[in-house]
């Protein structure tokens, strides 16, 4: 489903020199699987999520990234989104003056339009929204407020998963979704994420800590260090990391 081969990428700040962050990253996530990418700060976890979704300021210098056989890197961010790529942001943006539901409906319809599908009807949209909000224990009043403005860290993360449930993406990247969540909220969010697991979908769970993976059980775990995958294994690798830390990989990298 998602295939990364020897990916090299650098961050290009508006001021200052560019820095190479990804240095030959290879990764394959088949449809139906959940893969975790773990790694210390600065290992390139967020860069990976931004490169895959097409954020400005990141430049791929070598290698490839394909989604269902199609070159992702040449596509505009909104085209990638319409193909089913969704990023749950580590730091969701505040969008003043745009109510959550207005925004999500516009996004949903933009994606449908790009795929040549009909727009969602108002009753259908409300039904979907109600179900998603109930699953994530989101107060419906919150969905009328401007997106993320004045929301707590936990509320913002819950809103990310709400958008994910609404947009029903085919491939999800969760970037540090557990940060800012207490244990109860973590369970609610994990339940929402697990609801989207299925044979046609893939997922990349990027996290620093193991605790999210207690609730979203990965099929594979990869350790990202110094811009490449240093080790891959089953779910037990996450537990091992929790015990022994990342130092072993830092030295090796």
């Amino acid at each position: 489903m998602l295939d990364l081969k020897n990916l090299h990428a650098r961050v290009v700040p508006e001021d200052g020199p560019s820095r190479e962050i990804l240095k030959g990253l290879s990764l394959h996530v088949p449809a139906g699987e959940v893969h975790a990418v773990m790694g210390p700060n600065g290992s390139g976890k967020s860069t990976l999520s931004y490169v895959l979704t097409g954020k400005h300021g990141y430049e791929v210098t070598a290698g490839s990234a394909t989604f269902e056989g199609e070159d992702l890197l040449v596509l505009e961010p909104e085209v990638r989104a319409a193909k089913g790529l969704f990023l749950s942001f580590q730091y969701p943006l505040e969008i003043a003056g745009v109510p959550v539901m207005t925004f999500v409906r516009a996004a949903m319809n933009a994606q449908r339009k790009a795929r040549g599908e009909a727009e969602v009807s108002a009753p259908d949209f409300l039904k979907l929204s109600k179900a998603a909000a109930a699953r994530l224990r989101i107060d419906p009043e919150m969905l009328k407020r401007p997106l993320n403005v004045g929301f707590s860290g936990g509320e913002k993360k819950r809103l990310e998963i709400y958008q994910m449930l609404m947009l029903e993406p085919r491939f999800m990247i969760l970037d540090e979704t557990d940060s800012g969540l207490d244990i109860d909220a973590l369970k609610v969010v994990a339940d929402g994420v697990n609801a989207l697991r299925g044979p046609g979908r893939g997922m990349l769970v990027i996290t620093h800590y193991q605790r999210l993976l207690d609730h979203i059980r990965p099929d594979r775990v990869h350790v990202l260090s110094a811009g490449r995958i240093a080790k891959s294994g089953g779910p037990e690798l996450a537990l091992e990391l929790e015990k022994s830390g990342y130092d072993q990989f830092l030295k090796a990298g």
Partner: protein
Amino acid sequence: MQLADLPSRRTETWKWSDLRAAMAGQEAVLIGTGAMLAEGPIAAFAEMLGDGYGPSELVIAGQDETFETRMSEGDAGQFGSVTLKAGASATLLERIAVTGSRLRPFLPAHARITLEPGATLKRIVVQTNAADAVDAALVLNEAVVTLGAGATFRQFVLGQGARLARIETSVTAAEGATIEMNAVYLAASRRHVDLTSRVTHAAPGVNTRQLVRGVARKGGRGVFQGKFLVERAGQKADAAMQHNALLLGEGAEVFAKPELEIYADDVACAHGNTAGQIDEDAVFYLRQRGLPDDEARAMITRAFLFEALPSWLDEPLRGEIEGCIDAWLRASS
């Protein structure tokens, strides 16, 4: 009146809107007309181009009446006064529509507005510009407002600019008056829109709120000059001024001069002023959710501007103004 009588960039309050330069080559309009008036150039233009109709006088004693004026190229200047008797309430709607026609391109209006104690006025100025690309229009609009004790003045201005457009409001407030003056300006390419205002807090307990939001595209120029003056007698003034502008592209210009001048010692006055570009991270967030780049930018810009639309603005006017903003955002230049 002569060209040399007009304010130019050397005149502090007109430094970003050079009226003399805008009138160069069109001196013929000025010849044979009256002298510069003490009220200033906008009043002089309005009277001069009033085509001999003389000043209009409107006295309002009733409740909730709406009075509407319209002006376009070729129309006579408007010059006159509006008085609201004590306790009266009314809405004044001034429509200034630049069409790009070849008729006389001067659209001047000057009004002296007096609110007696306890009166309430909503004033809405909708200045649109439907010309294709370039227009020759000179829009000059000024209201000089005097508020009696406990009077309420609410104003909203939409300015789309012209070759040169200046919409100016001066308010002098007596005890306990309430003032709200919001505005939105949209400066497209080759358009100049100047919103200038001055509020004098001349007595105790005046409450003033001002929120102005503007956008400028490449080759467009927006000007905001706002001044709050609190005189020695203006104790307990509660006044907040906010101007925020978005520059939509390289070569867009916004000039802003927010000013507080305070002579009383027990006041709460604040002002904020920003001009910057759209947050690219926010644009990316919206695009990641599937909105095309232009729609993402329009959504952010629209929400930014709509925040300045006052809650008291009733339908269908509110819908009309939102429609003007949306149409402007959809247009490419």
